[in-house]
């Protein structure tokens, strides 16, 4: 079913904004963070105006409402990614914290000097640095599935690495630079065949296409609300119940305990064991509404729409002089296009585009190693989401022609 983008645009107040007088916003930076529909924004305002209370331990009406709303959001998320139970859904601050949580609890407990962790060359820093920190602490070995010229993972190196008895494979479901969608299910099957657990960085997948963690058989899966039309300040760690149960707590404090004495404590049940202190309550509620919003449009429809826009953009960008798309021929790709303009630094591209109200990112997009591999210090990146239309692409193309002209 086709999305009605004109209708959708009206759901997002910011898209009405003029960046500067007379210049409408063309937001092509959803890979960094998505815009929010009114339904999400207003749900949090309403929570603060009507239901705000601390949760879990309160008997008064507000506390009960807040607790029920917070836990309902967890249920929505569990259903959205097809988790088996809400016990498998841990609220964190963002995808980054979720990965660190696994590294610092599961990793610290179960890994030993010499153990191998497999990552890939296309990871976001958030799926590199936590493992580097753990590797340094515990003397682990990191190895990397290489990215080929086409911009896809080289699955032959993967097979070879799996023979070395790795303890964990951690990779992104979709690259935030190239848009590459990795064959997660196949890679998980292979890893499990080799007796290896898998963590998937879903920061770019869950917002953009339908994800079924149970069908994938992922062991850990992480993502952030702010990239899926939800609020900042909240993310998710999905983990198989059996694994989460074996893991020691992460942070200590209120709510994650059953019982505390001066010198000892007993951890709470899942998922609360991993949620220390007052959580991001309003944010969970907004996150739940974001799930409602995405579900009402249909993740299949969203994915279809993004595919069409991306194909259109790839075609149109061919006609911009001096423009080179970073890995244009990736087969399975989401709505992210990174590119260079010969003779113009990406920072200047972004700044000139901004003059025309067009928001793109410029830099290494938190993937320095990938850029380094391809010999690029920085690129410009345009990314598309459910509120972008063909006209946005046309405006980008016009803007890029202006950049060319200015620096010609």
């Amino acid at each position, binding site marked *: 079913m086709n999305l009605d983008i004109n209708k959708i645009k009206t759901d997002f107040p910011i898209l009405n904004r003029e960046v500067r007088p007379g210049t409408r916003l063309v937001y092509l930076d959803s890979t960094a963070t998505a815009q929010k529909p009114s339904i999400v924004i207003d749900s949090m305002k309403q929570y603060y105006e009507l239901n705000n209370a601390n949760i*879990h*331990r*309160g*008997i008064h*009406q507000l*506390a*009960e409402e807040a*607790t*029920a709303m917070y*836990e309902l959001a967890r249920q929505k998320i569990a259903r959205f990614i097809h988790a088996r139970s*809400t*016990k498998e859904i841990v609220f964190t601050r963002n995808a980054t914290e979720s990965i660190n949580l696994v590294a610092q609890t599961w990793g610290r407990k179960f890994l030993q000097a010499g153990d191998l962790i497999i990552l890939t060359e296309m990871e976001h820093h958030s799926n590199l640095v936590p493992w580097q920190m753990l590797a340094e602490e515990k003397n682990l070995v990191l190895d990397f599935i290489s990215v080929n010229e086409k911009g896809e993972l080289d699955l032959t190196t993967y097979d070879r690495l799996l023979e070395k008895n790795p303890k964990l494979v951690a990779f992104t479901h979709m690259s935030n630079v190239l848009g590459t969608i990795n064959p997660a299910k196949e890679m998980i099957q292979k890893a499990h065949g080799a007796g290896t657990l898998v963590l998937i960085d879903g920061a770019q997948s869950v917002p953009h296409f339908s994800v079924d963690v149970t069908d994938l058989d992922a062991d850990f899966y992480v993502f952030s609300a702010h990239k899926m039309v939800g609020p900042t300040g909240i993310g998710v760690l999905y983990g198989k119940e059996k694994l989460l149960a074996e893991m020691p707590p992460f942070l200590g404090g209120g709510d994650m305990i*059953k*019982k505390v004495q001066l010198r000892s404590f007993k951890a709470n*049940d899942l998922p609360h064991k991993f949620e220390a202190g007052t959580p991001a309550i309003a944010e969970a509620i907004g996150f739940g509404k974001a799930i409602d919003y995405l579900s009402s449009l249909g993740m299949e429809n969203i994915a279809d729409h993004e595919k069409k826009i991306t194909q259109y953009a790839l075609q149109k960008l061919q006609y911009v002089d001096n423009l080179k798309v970073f890995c244009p021929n990736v087969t399975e790709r989401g709505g992210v296009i990174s590119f260079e303009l010969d003779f113009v630094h990406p920072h200047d591209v972004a700044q000139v585009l901004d003059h025309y109200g067009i928001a793109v990112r410029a830099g290494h997009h938190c993937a320095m190693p990938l850029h380094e591999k391809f010999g690029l210090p920085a690129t410009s990146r345009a990314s598309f989401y459910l509120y972008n239309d063909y006209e946005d692409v046309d405006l980008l193309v016009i803007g890029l022609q202006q950049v060319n002209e200015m620096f010609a």
Partner: protein
Amino acid sequence: MDDFYRELIVEHYKNPAYKGTLDPNDFTYEDENPLCGDHIRVDLRVDDNNMITEAVFSGHGCAISQASADLLMESIIGKPLEEVKNMTKETVLELLGIELGPVRLKCALLSLKVLKAGLYGIGNIEEELLEI
């Protein structure tokens, strides 16, 4: 509220009909809710057909936990043990006839939890019972 509290809960709390212990008994089990310090013990006697003939509770706690224990004891007498195993949170809520928030739910379900945990002989069925 005044209604339910005074007439049902407060009444059962203040004048429980099934408070006490049985010695000898065929079954005894106890547990507590660390959140509020509620503590409940349940003693049962059964006949040869595993039909419950006597049921009492002891311990201390809030009105909801005590009243629901009293109501639960009343309701299981004359029932087969097997039937008790199938009781759910809804069973207890029907007995109480009120809606409860998550915290009070734990109070209300403590006696059923003690009963079921004892019958199943397993440590942790709380979550299955309490899942919202």
